[in-house]
């Protein structure tokens, strides 16, 4: 608890770094983590797939109270992004002031520091969203 569990962080880096997850070959449903069974249709035919790298912000919040290891980043923005395939991904929205946030704004995936474990100083990197730079 309250520390970065290194093997866990390591084995989930596909989704964390690249939004690479697991899609059901039967119904098309996307899972962020490895599955043996599709959670939606029960099929056992699952393949690796990568989500689109852009999406639309459908909801957001400015976080003022945080959990441990995130205190120094307050205030930060957490949003829900609808990806091209319709999957929703929750993630931080960076490089954007709260007053610049708009529902339906286009965002793109970027890699950022998510948190640093004060104990072993491991840096956890992962996806965040940011307004598309056009």
């Amino acid at each position, binding site marked *: *608890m309250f520390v970065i569990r290194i093997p866990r962080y390591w084995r*989930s880096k596909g989704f964390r770094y690249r939004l690479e997850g697991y899609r059901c070959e039967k119904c098309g449903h996307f899972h962020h983590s490895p599955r043996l069974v599709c959670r939606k249709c029960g099929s056992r035919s699952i393949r690796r797939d990568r989500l689109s790298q852009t999406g639309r912000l459908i909801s957001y*919040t400015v976080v*003022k*109270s*945080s959990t441990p290891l995130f205190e120094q980043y307050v205030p930060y923005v*957490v949003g829900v992004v609808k990806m091209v395939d319709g999957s929703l991904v*929750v993630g*931080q929205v960076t490089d954007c002031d709260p007053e610049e946030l708009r529902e339906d704004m286009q965002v793109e995936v970027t890699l950022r520091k*998510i948190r640093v474990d004060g104990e072993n100083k491991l840096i956890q990197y992962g996806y965040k969203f940011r307004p598309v730079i056009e």
Partner: protein
Amino acid sequence: MQKVYIAGYGLTKVGEHWDKSLETLMAESALKALDYTGLSRVDEICVSNVYGEVLQEQLVLGSVLAEELGVSGVPAVRVEAGAASGAAAIRYAVNAIQSGITNVVLVCGGEKLTDGTQEESLSLLSMDERYEVAGEIGSHFFSTAALLYRMYMRRYDVKQDGIASFSVISHENASTVQHAQYPFKIGLENVLNSPYVAEPLHRLETTAQADGAAALVLCSENIARKLDSPKVLVSGIHLATDFPNPFDREDPLHIQSLAASTSSLLSMRGISRGEVSFIELFDAASILAALSLESSGFIPRGKSGEAAMSGRLSLNGELPINTFGGLKARGHPVGATPIYQVAEAYLQLTRQAGKNQLDNVRFGLVESLAGFGSSSVSILLEEV
């Protein structure tokens, strides 16, 4: 199938119990329940606690409580289903009694969040979602609630006043409750002027760190007949699950697990929603009160705020909710919370609710949620 009754309860005040341990709080509520019922022993103990292995670094709370009560030897376990653990513990007891393998079960829920920091508590509350795509990226229980809140206001084109009014109702109801964490009234402007935890969710729309323990004695009809204490019938208890993260679901604003558990519960008993006298809801964040009422079919979608402001949901309204202050004002000692909810429904149905007593109560509905309905438990209690 054996009928199951609630024959007694015991509550501690919800608050910051710096000088008491988790096991002392649990023992205190359990002894109150046993004394109230006039029992010195039970057949089984079922403990509900959520964060003991983290905050107290303590497992085997069943055995610990048996030891505290001086009844070591009795079968005792702990049940976990996130913030709905207390309801899952009751379900365990109900199943055991219904099956005929046991007659009297002590269900005791306890939590002591103040052994950790506020930041830690927030992290713990967030474990009801899948961690890799929630807690681990800086999202937490209240930020998810805030995301749903904004979606809700947008979809139904409503202002914040209605949802924020749920906090006003809870505090109004808690103002006369001895065991409540926050027994005072607040106005809508207090809610809306309080700082944001995660915009648009204000601090006064959330729950705070709390310690507390609550206990119930559940028993079979045989035993119930022998006990002098007032009884309430457990007409049904249904649990359903859903994807833990709301944004993985078909509709994030619909708690399908709760819709399923409440619908099947009412249809099994053969009553309509209109016959439910009051509801104890799971308002761990204001928006959850609205989503609960709408998902379980008591209020049309998008209309909860309107209902809250109209007075319909107040103690003297047609569908009172959170008659002792709910999670918001009575407090939310997580593992104990559903036990408080059921104990409060018991007090209503046995006419022991004091200043908060409702008239003409027959059916009380309790709805408990883990997180945003990863587990939803609906419990129907009936006047005997």
